[in-house]
């Protein structure tokens, strides 16, 4: 049993995990950096403990500081949230060595799925189709060029240790590839401490569709359907929805069932997400597993009624899943909007400052996941995510209609946010048709979206 959890994260996810703990009767201690002393999670916590300076490497990324904080504050488990130490198998191992429960997959499971290239091979063996790519990691430039010749251009260069679309680059020719390799290596080394790269065929006009799985320690698991995260800006998700508007029901079921089957067979455990690219013909290709809770998990919660964070905690404590696939029922349509502190017109430049006023929206099917409050100062050290607006409706049309109302109501004053951009996306005919790919925003350009709406308002 888990009685007291150390939350080793910040922002909206720290608040989200804290709420899950409370609803389960578990005490929550929030570990925070000096810059997050007045964050909402800290103010809400049963206890808060400062683990280091603003710099993540010495606070949220310091395994020793996090584990020491858990020990001195009497916790018996650590929830790593997403990012930071969430998929670090060495950290999970260290956590266990100190008799603490790591809320996530075990160290062995994290290690098995740590390499993206390795995971691709592993799941291909379990029958999942994968995007054509390099055999294992690239040894050197020569190897890269030979593999590229075999796979064919255009190609995506990906860091094996990466995540969240960071450090990826597109190469259309051998020359571009050669130039990009050096940059990619140094970027990957800086961002992830590991410069191993692999290549993947770049499929034009694909959608990003992912399947949520929940698996206990004893090999019983379910899928909770798919999420469509195709509205992206330079590989960063901005709007997510479930179910995917682009695949038919037969494909939907086949995709989800093959995902859970392969994840079980490959030995995946706890909560996770299998990401796929889906092309225009409905063919899907596995790309990677995210061995953590994801930013966009709430849309799946809205459809299923399952508290995925609570499941994560329960299963990490060793409880059996206790239900089968037939118990998972998905209803309606949900959309998530990532609210970022950024100036969309200035190339999405992150913004810092004080939130003068924050007024959340309400109404049927409307949910806010955020750490904002009026007077909150957005620190400059971390990512620009201020929160997520999640809207549910019985179908896509009603979810869109409710989203328009909610986005009009949502007020974040004092700094630039992408709320107007979200409003504009909801007026875009391509988005509304559901027939878009991951390049929708980049092809058209953010300014065009915003101009389209302001033009309409003036007319």
């Amino acid at each position, binding site marked *: 049993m888990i009685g007291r959890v150390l939350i080793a994260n910040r922002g909206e996810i720290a608040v989200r995990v804290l709420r899950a703990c409370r609803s389960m009767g578990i005490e929550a201690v929030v570990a925070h950096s*000096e810059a997050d*002393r*007045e964050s909402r999670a*800290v*103010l809400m916590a049963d*206890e*808060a*403990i*400062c*683990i*280091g*300076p603003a710099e993540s490497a010495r*606070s949220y990324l310091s395994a*020793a*500081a996090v*584990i*020491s*904080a858990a*020990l*001195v*504050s009497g916790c018996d488990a650590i929830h790593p949230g997403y990012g930071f130490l969430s998929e670090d198998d060495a950290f999970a191992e260290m956590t266990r060595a*100190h008799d603490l429960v790591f809320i996530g997959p075990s160290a062995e499971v994290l290690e098995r799925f740590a390499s993206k290239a390795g995971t691709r091979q592993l799941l291909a063996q379990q029958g999942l189709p994968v995007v054509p790519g390099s055999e294992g990691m690239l040894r050197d430039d020569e190897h890269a060029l030979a593999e590229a010749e075999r796979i064919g251009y255009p190609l995506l260069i990906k860091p094996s240790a990466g995540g969240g679309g960071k450090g990826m680059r597109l190469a259309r020719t051998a020359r571009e590839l050669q130039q990009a390799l050096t940059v990619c290596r140094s970027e990957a080394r800086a961002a992830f401490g590991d410069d191993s790269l692999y290549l993947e065929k770049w499929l034009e006009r694909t959608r990003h569709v992912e399947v949520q799985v929940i698996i206990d320690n004893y090999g019983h698991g379910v899928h909770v359907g798919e999420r469509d995260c195709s509205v992206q800006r330079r590989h960063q998700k901005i709007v997510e929805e479930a179910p995917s508007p682009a695949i038919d029901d037969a494909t939907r079921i086949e995709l989800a069932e093959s995902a859970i089957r392969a994840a079980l067979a490959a030995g995946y455990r706890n909560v996770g997400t299998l990401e796929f690219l889906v092309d225009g013909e409905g063919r899907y290709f596995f790309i990677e597993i995210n061995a953590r809770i994801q930013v966009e998990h709430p849309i799946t919660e809205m459809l299923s009624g399952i508290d995925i964070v609570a499941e994560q905690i329960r299963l990490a404590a060793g409880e059996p899943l206790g239900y089968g696939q037939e118990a998972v029922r998905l209803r309606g349509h949900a959309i998530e909007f990532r609210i970022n502190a950024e100036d969309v017109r200035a190339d999405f430049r992150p913004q810092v400052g004080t939130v003068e006023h924050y007024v959340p929206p309400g109404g049927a099917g409307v949910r806010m996941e955020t750490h904002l409050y009026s007077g909150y100062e957005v620190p400059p050290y971390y990512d620009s995510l201020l929160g997520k607006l999640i809207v549910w409706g019985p179908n896509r049309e009603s979810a869109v209609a409710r989203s328009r109302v909610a986005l009009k109501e949502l007020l974040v004053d004092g700094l630039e946010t992408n709320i107007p951009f979200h409003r504009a996306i909801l007026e875009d005919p391509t988005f509304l048709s559901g027939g878009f790919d991951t390049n929708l925003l980049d092809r058209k350009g953010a300014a065009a979206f915003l101009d389209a709406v302001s033009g309409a308002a003036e007319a």
Partner: protein
Amino acid sequence: MTEEAARGAPGNVAVDRAVDLDALTDEILPALIARLRASRLAEIEVRDSGWRVRLRRDLRTARRPSRGHSGDTHGPESDDQEASQTRSPAVGYFSPAPGLVVGHAVTAGDTLGSVDVLGIAQEVTAPVGGIISAVLAEIGQAVEYGQVLAEIDPLGGEPGNGDDGAAVDGAAQAPAPGGAAAPTPEAAR
């Protein structure tokens, strides 16, 4: 919680069983209040056989004024105050050095103790030279990063000048006594 809590008065005191109430109210509580105020913690809880005390304060009210304060007019002054505080370099268990005693003279860089982080000792050093005016953590105590462990009076004079954030709060919200009082129970021993 309001001003009272901000000044370090107990927001919530729970005594499980009757103990020597005089000792609790006259010695233990003032010492704990001083410690809470000196720290950046929102809450501390102390248990002993038969009793348990929990002190809590509202960091929003306790800290806001100090930030603006140190930010503008009294910048240099608060820098001095900052400098006289010896803060924990990590989160872990504190072990004082033998020389960490009120009234002892130290020079900048002296080792005042260590914080044990998973078995590895992180040294606590004096940021300035002077006379130790307060010791705010004891052997084996769990401390967080940045927590004030000791105060050094750089001039070797009036105790209380080298107070911390809590004192700054006092100065911003109400005149001096709140600030000067903090280290006294420790220093008087």
